[in-house]
């Protein structure tokens, strides 16, 4: 079974900076890590490979530094890693990202049985890219998958849609996004990481995919625009109480009573 997992590098801290001009995130010179949801997707892929045999290819779209998460995936046990990187991809929104990944998957994943995406990222947070790629590839897709069994021409999955648990079979090739359930990702092997050669990660640019697609990717191919960014405007209509006041407990109780959230119990 050939499995392709798409992963992303995200900022390692919450304190990210926004480029005031483009409204996109500044990625330069920032600590980065693998998107935690992708670790779960990878683990799901490795367990499946261990059960049925085959290979796991990891793909990441991002700046050249994203090489690091692909190496980490190789050290965890991936067989092949591809970095999709090009200046032309900068400023991509969901659709432009999905187009770039779909082009990549058509090229390097034409013989794949299963494409796996993490549920969402911790930076973009939209949970949209996976399903959009499936639409562009015109293959069936299921979100929030928490178990996978392999069969000849299909996979059998269980997905958790809110309080609904749905079991289904999906024809191959297909795309799934993985429910963030409890699945402990394996640690990268230090030995593997050390022995990776400098060309362990294959690099693909726009010209390798489709040079004519320039207006379909990156900022040019993104239908959405950030009009403006601004600090949250909130009303400061609040009552401020001093936590050091000796009757602070009582003041809070009085507030609950006023808000009809508590009442005195009248005895007798």
């Amino acid at each position, binding site marked *: 079974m050939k499995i392709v997992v798409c992963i992303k590098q995200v900022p390692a801290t919450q304190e990210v900076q926004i480029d005031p001009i483009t409204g996109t995130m500044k990625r330069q010179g920032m600590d980065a890590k693998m998107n935690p949801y992708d670790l779960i997707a990878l683990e799901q892929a490795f367990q499946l490979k261990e059960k049925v045999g085959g290979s796991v290819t990891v793909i990441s779209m991002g700046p050249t530094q994203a090489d690091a998460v692909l190496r980490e995936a190789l050290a965890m046990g991936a067989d092949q890693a591809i970095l999709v990187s090009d200046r032309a991809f900068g400023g991509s929104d969901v659709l432009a990202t999905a187009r770039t990944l779909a082009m990549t998957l058509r090229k390097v994943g034409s013989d794949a049985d299963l494409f796996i995406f993490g549920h969402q990222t911790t930076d973009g947070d939209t949970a949209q890219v996976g*399903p959009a790629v*499936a639409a562009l590839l015109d293959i069936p897709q299921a979100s929030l998958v928490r178990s996978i069994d392999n069969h000849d021409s299909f996979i059998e999955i269980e997905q958790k849609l809110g309080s609904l648990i749905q*079991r289904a079979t999906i024809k191959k090739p297909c795309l799934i996004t993985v429910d963030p359930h409890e699945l402990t990702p394996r640690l990268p092997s230090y030995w593997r990481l050390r022995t990776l050669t400098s060309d362990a990660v294959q690099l693909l640019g726009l010209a390798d995919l489709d040079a004519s697609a320039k207006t379909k990717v990156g900022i040019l191919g993104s239908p959405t625009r950030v*009009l403006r960014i601004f600090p949250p405007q909130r009303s400061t209509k609040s009552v401020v109480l001093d936590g050091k006041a000796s009757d602070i407990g009582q003041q809070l109780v009085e507030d609950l009573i006023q808000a009809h959230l508590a009442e005195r119990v009248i005895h007798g």
Partner: protein
Amino acid sequence: MAEPLTKSNTSGICVIAEVEHQTLHPVTLELLGKAVDLAKKLPGPISCLIYGHDVASLGQWALSFGAQQVLVLDHRELAAFRTDIMASVLHEAIHDLKPAVVLIGATPIGRSLAPRLAGLLETGLTADCTELDISDHGDLIQRRPAWGGNIMADIVTQNHRPQMASVRPKIFTPIPEIANPNGSIRRFALDPDLLLSGINVLSRTEEPMTTSISDASRIVVAGLGVADETGLELVHALAKRLNAAVAYTRPLIERGIGNYTHQIGLSGRTVAPDLLVACGVSGSVQFAAGMGKSKHIIAINSDPDAEIFTLAHVGVVGDCYSVIPQWIDALDQGDYHV
């Protein structure tokens, strides 16, 4: 496929309904409520797309909550949730309706359907909007916390149509029910080819109703300011005394303190309880996106400049480790019913 959708051939707002237990999901009525509001600035009809099996009777309901046209996509093949064919039939129906704006609930189902539909329509989609408005140019302004950072962003889909946005439940409010609505309900003829799915649903089971944090009427939230053992004990004791559920900010979930179903915020749950008590929570935009509509917010934070105080109705500038025990004491001593 028919002619592409552009600025000149689209108008109005379409709400994609979600059917749950043969009724309209509350988020559908909330989105219709917002559509009524947006329609004051955007010409064109308010339509509602209802898809599923045996759902025709729900059309009347959508009309009562603000839809002017209902398009029903009713078929046995649409009984179980299968993203591929559902996106395909909705794609077809949207080409028929030609709305300028498409709104969809950011539920587990909406979140897997919307991006597939946006992919087929090759248009923009903004997830989890916390506010929507119409610009002077007639574009949909999609407001949401920006990607990272304590900052909000207004996003527009400049040239592509329709402009798609998803919104969590409990962000908007339905209009009061209209007694005798006039409006039309039409059945959409489905092309059988579009109903060929690569997915075969084997079984569907409802998980036993776990008490979801989204349904709790009172919530006490623990943030990083109370993330140690003593702090968490205090939060649990307060919650018990207030008859409230306990929830967390994201950093606590990341540390394994709670399950992610108990995370409030942009990447967690949206809540709008009667009472929300935030203990040691700074009040980031991502957190606020999940609780801004709470009816009564009390915040305890030792930093007088914490953002949470701009969200709270009552702010206590103080140390949780001393304020919470005093609050519990006062409740116990005075014999209060909460």
